[in-house]
């Protein structure tokens, strides 16, 4: 260690002026650091220490782990088989909030406290675009072939080099069966005057506007639509909100409104409807609208600063095993990206295995569309436009 030259210290005593100048420079540096939001060079991936450190920090959503009371059978089974201890966190309850927490570290290529993060596909697309994720070593994902073909590729990540599918589900229309025994078949049904003030919609843009666009005959998966079609959907929603037809626009809490009776019809995710039916009796119906439903997907990525990439890959691969995937799908009611079939599907009760909302057939998939990946300009423009409805004037 180099010693400080004492002589130079004594010949240059720290005057008050010097100290103030130093403080000024320090403050300016801090200020510049605080102001910087301009693009910088893409960060580089951290060194993988998985060989020596048998641990994994997994940031996901609360509803995604299969549990049996206080036990997490598959997590425990994975740890037993691999020797990798997993810290499971439900940190990603909201993509935007999660992103704002970790974006500065991601930008600098630092560890965000997670070795794998489960994100909505549109957020993963952003991370991939910005170079915030590590490339996945495909040869470690030996069960990749178990994934359904449609999930094996993504427009935002050709060939799935940096993201892997994790959970999916359908968004459609839900209703209270006691109040609306005849049910709903389309998004337009929600705008019926008899439901005025009793309709809820989700604040998730792609779910709500995706359904409204599908209702207007737009193929949300294709590239043939743009500003005009999006604006039309925004205006439809704005009209319904300002007229009072839509009572609430909420995040996850929209299901609580359905449950409490505050809303009797809503744009909803099928998993949420199954959950409230399990909690409060079989009172709510769900349908994929005639003109099409939205297929949403969450994917798992390995953040750029993760030092346990291989551990994360092993973990993901474990869940791509057919027998594990079927257990998770049955326990969580979300669609697994894994193509589960006999004999594995025979291990769960028939009422579950025949549920097309959890184990959809190709025909069911065909009735839904995935919201296409937006360009960075569109993401900014459409996001701002949608927010004007959420923050509408009275």
């Amino acid at each position, binding site marked *: 260690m180099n010693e400080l030259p004492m002589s130079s210290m004594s010949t240059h005593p720290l005057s008050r002026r010097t100290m103030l100048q130093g403080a000024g420079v320090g*403050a300016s540096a801090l200020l510049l650091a605080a102001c910087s939001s301009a693009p910088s060079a893409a960060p580089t991936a951290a060194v993988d220490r998985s060989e020596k450190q048998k641990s994994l920090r997994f940031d996901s959503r609360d509803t995604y782990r299969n549990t049996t009371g206080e036990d997490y059978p598959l997590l425990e089974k994975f740890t037993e088989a691999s020797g990798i201890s997993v810290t499971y966190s439900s940190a990603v309850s909201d993509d935007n909030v999660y992103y704002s927490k970790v974006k500065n570290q991601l930008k600098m290529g630092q560890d965000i406290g997670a070795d794998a993060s489960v994100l909505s596909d549109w957020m993963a697309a952003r991370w991939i675009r910005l170079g915030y994720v590590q490339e996945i070593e495909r040869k470690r994902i030996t069960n990749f072939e178990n994934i359904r073909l449609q999930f094996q590729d993504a427009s935002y990540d050709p060939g799935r080099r940096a993201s892997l599918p994790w959970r999916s589900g359908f968004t459609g229309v839900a209703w209270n069966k006691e109040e609306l025994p005849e049910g709903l078949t389309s998004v337009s049904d929600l705008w019926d005057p008899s439901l005025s003030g009793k309709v809820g919609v989700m604040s998730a843009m792609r779910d709500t506007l995706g359904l409204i666009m599908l209702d207007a005959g737009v193929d949300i998966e294709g590239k043939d639509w743009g500003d005009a079609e999006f604006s039309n959907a925004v205006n439809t929603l704005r009209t319904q909100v300002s007229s009072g037809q839509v009572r609430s626009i909420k995040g996850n809490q929209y299901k609580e409104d359905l449950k409490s009776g505050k809303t009797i019809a809503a744009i909803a995710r099928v998993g949420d409807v199954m959950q409230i039916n399990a909690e409060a009796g079989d009172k709510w119906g769900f349908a994929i609208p005639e003109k099409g439903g939205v297929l949403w997907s969450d994917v798992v990525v390995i953040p750029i600063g993760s030092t346990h990439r291989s551990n994360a890959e092993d973990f993901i691969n474990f869940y791509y095993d057919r027998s594990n995937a079927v257990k998770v799908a049955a326990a969580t009611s979300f669609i697994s990206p894994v193509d589960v079939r006999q004999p594995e599907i025979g291990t769960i009760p028939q009422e579950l295995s025949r549920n097309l909302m959890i184990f959809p057939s190709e025909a069911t998939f065909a009735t839904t569309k995935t919201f296409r990946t937006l360009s960075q300009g569109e993401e900014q423009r459409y996001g701002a436009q949608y927010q004007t409805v959420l923050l509408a004037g009275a």
Partner: protein
Amino acid sequence: MAFSAFATGTAQEQAPRRKSKIALLLLLPGILYLMLFFLVPLVSLVITSFQAPVPYGDIGEFQTAFKWQNYVDVVNTYGEHILRSFGYAILATIFALLFSYPLAYFIGVKARRWPLLQNLMLVLVIAPFFISFLLRTLAWKSILSDESFVISGLKALSLMAPDAHFTGTAAAVVFGLTYNFIPFMTLPLYSNLQQLDTRLLEAGSDLYSTPSKTFFKVTVPLSMTGIVSGVLLTFIPAAGDYINASRDFLGGTGTAMIGNVIESNFLVTLNYPVAAALSIILMAVILVMVTVYVKRSGTEDLL
């Protein structure tokens, strides 16, 4: 810093003229703290508010510029939200004052003879602080929801229309703001009224003044410093609040306040310049309103 506008000539004359190194040394931690945690973020916020998007840049990427049009844009786009925020904050402050004054008067003046009761009531005023602000607001959301006992009761008594709601309305937001900031109004008022010399009230009565005249001519002017403190402590945070008006709490789609707009621009659309410009406008308007209010109420010495 913001309140230096209220400094009076008298105070300056009373300040010791001799420079004291110890005083400077003692001030240093405070000054450094303010520089680091107030001045630097404030300047950063001002710079951010003038930033422009990076050409062909990604979402949330901005570069230093002098795009003053950001301010014009936000006023044009969110003018209604700015006005609504101040409208709600003013209403909440008035309601909090009307509720807190009698309460503080009772605790500080009437209950002087019963110290136990006085302390008990003070605890009741402070008790909500022991529970998180969020939880308290969520609790009100349940209490005031459509299926709650309160709303069902009001509907049963025909005091509310059968299909009427309370949550999601402007009234619910103002109610939430009032409730949450009542302790901030009550405590300064109590602290002031506790020192009220009741002999002055007796003198008013001896001079044949009616109780109401004594109240407005003696009690209110004497408690003006408490009123001003309470109003400031209530109005300033209420104007920037984003919890009560949130759609997930007591608000609805038509009740968004400026805090909600700032939150949405910072977290969702990542439009930092807009969020920063709105924050600066909020701060500037509050500063102007508070300065005018304090000058007009004749309590410059308070600050």
